[in-house]
């Protein structure tokens, strides 16, 4: 029986499997913030309500690396032994901001290059007997790998 897919942390991204988006805030002057409630403020914006908006789910690699050793808690390793995770910082053209995320399974740093186009998908961060805890991951647009 398939496990229930739930977000690893609520409120940061939509759970549309085919078209996920990060949930951000937008100040009255149009400046974006992610996460919505932790992203700071634009001091040049007039005060006013912060609108909830969805960020672009495509961008270009600003930089990338991996973590070869098991990160400490609160990271929850998905496998034992630990398989290195690849991490990318992605620049969103419209929002002119850089957002971090893991890269989908099966991609290594050797497959990546700064400037490469990537898209957001949902992937498993860790799991238990009943649930897949999912998070957004970046996937090279040209690549056939990933999707988990």
């Amino acid at each position, binding site marked *: 029986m398939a496990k229930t897919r739930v977000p690893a942390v609520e409120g940061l991204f939509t759970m549309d499997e085919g078209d996920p988006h990060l949930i951000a805030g937008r100040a009255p002057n149009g400046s974006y913030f992610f996460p919505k409630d932790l992203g700071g403020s634009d001091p040049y914006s007039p005060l006013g309500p912060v609108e909830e908006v969805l960020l672009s789910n495509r961008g270009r690699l600003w930089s990338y690396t991996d973590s070869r050793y098991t990160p*400490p808690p609160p990271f929850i390793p998905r496998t034992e032994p630990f398989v290195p995770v690849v991490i990318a910082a992605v620049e969103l053209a419209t929002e002119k901001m850089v957002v971090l995320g893991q890269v989908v399974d099966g991609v290594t740093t050797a497959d990546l290059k700064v400037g490469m186009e990537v898209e957001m998908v949902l992937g498993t961060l860790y799991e238990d007997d009943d649930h897949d805890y999912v998070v957004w991951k970046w996937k090279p647009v040209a690549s056939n790998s990933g999707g988990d």
Partner: protein
Amino acid sequence: MGQVDEVAILGVGMHQWGKWGRNFVEYGVKASRDALDDAGVNWRDVQFVSGANTVRCGYPGYVSGSTFAKALGFTGGQVASSYAACASGTTALSIARAQILAGVCDVALVVGADTTPKGFLAPQAGDRHDDPDWLRFRLFGATNPVYFALHARRRMDLYGATKEDFAMVKVKNSRHAVHNPNARYNKEYGPADIDNSPVVSDPLRLLEICATSDGGAAIVVSSMEYARAHGHTDPVRVAGISLTTPTYPDVILDLPYMASDSAAVTPAPDLTFKESVAKRAYDEAGVGPGDLSLAEVYDLSSALELDWYEQIGLCKPGEAEQLLRSGATSIGGRIPVNASGGLGAFGEAVPAQAIAQVCELTWQLRGQAGARQVNGAKVGLSINQGLFGHGSCVIVTR
């Protein structure tokens, strides 16, 4: 002339960095007593203690000023305790300077010390979905070296930096550290040693990433009048301190955030965050990059040292590798960087580290740095960065 009045550095002291596993208070007391001896100041005459806190050693670390004061012997003096991650030491120094310049006290002790666990620095326990530092570990496994590596990769892509360049930083600093009795590692490393160490976060290897260390450092500072009255005719002086925050939007993703600011509406400022940190200290001190005799920069990774060369104005963006390869940043070169050996040779004892940087500059400006002496040193800069956008820079002159 600078924009802010100066204070005198009367004495400095350190406890050697290492993995000693003892109470952090012991390191702070040792460093304080050495600094007091160096200053020729009796502890009972110190009017103000400014402690740089640690979050790793329980409650005594959160109120470190009075913890250190009690260990040295309570005298009824004034006290402050401050935490700003890696910027804690500069924050503590800045509070002492403000007290002196305001005429609240004449002579103060600045002290920080830490005892660190093995391995990665990690967030505090708990389930905190509203804490960026917690979220980056839970959602990505983004340790500190992950961020260092993101910046290293940018240098490779933008400027053609190579892994050999990064290794050369470590080799250079290890050569300096051979002559530093306060460093944790006194071994000289060659390029092969670095190449043989395991990759932690591509492209950075274990020997290129700063360890976590135990250590303690202390400085005795006073008004210029007090210094003169107590026989310090030509003391090293604190000429500028910067505790600068970023200017919105900071578009360079950095620790511990999941996203940068957005430049969609408000354009990015002319200076990057770290450039603005250095500029403030230069402006206060009334000096520029061309006046520097040496610099102590926060080489959390080998590659980050190269970023600092550009951020403090030693060269233009993209020219740091050339400056390194020319030998200019080695002792004996035009502008030695990390003559102490840097974090690569010390490891990081968070609240003590910025204080230790100023200790090194002080010894250098007095001509007391032994075999690692930078000849004729007159102006020194130290710079680092606390988590969450907390700049930290000190300029000392003599």
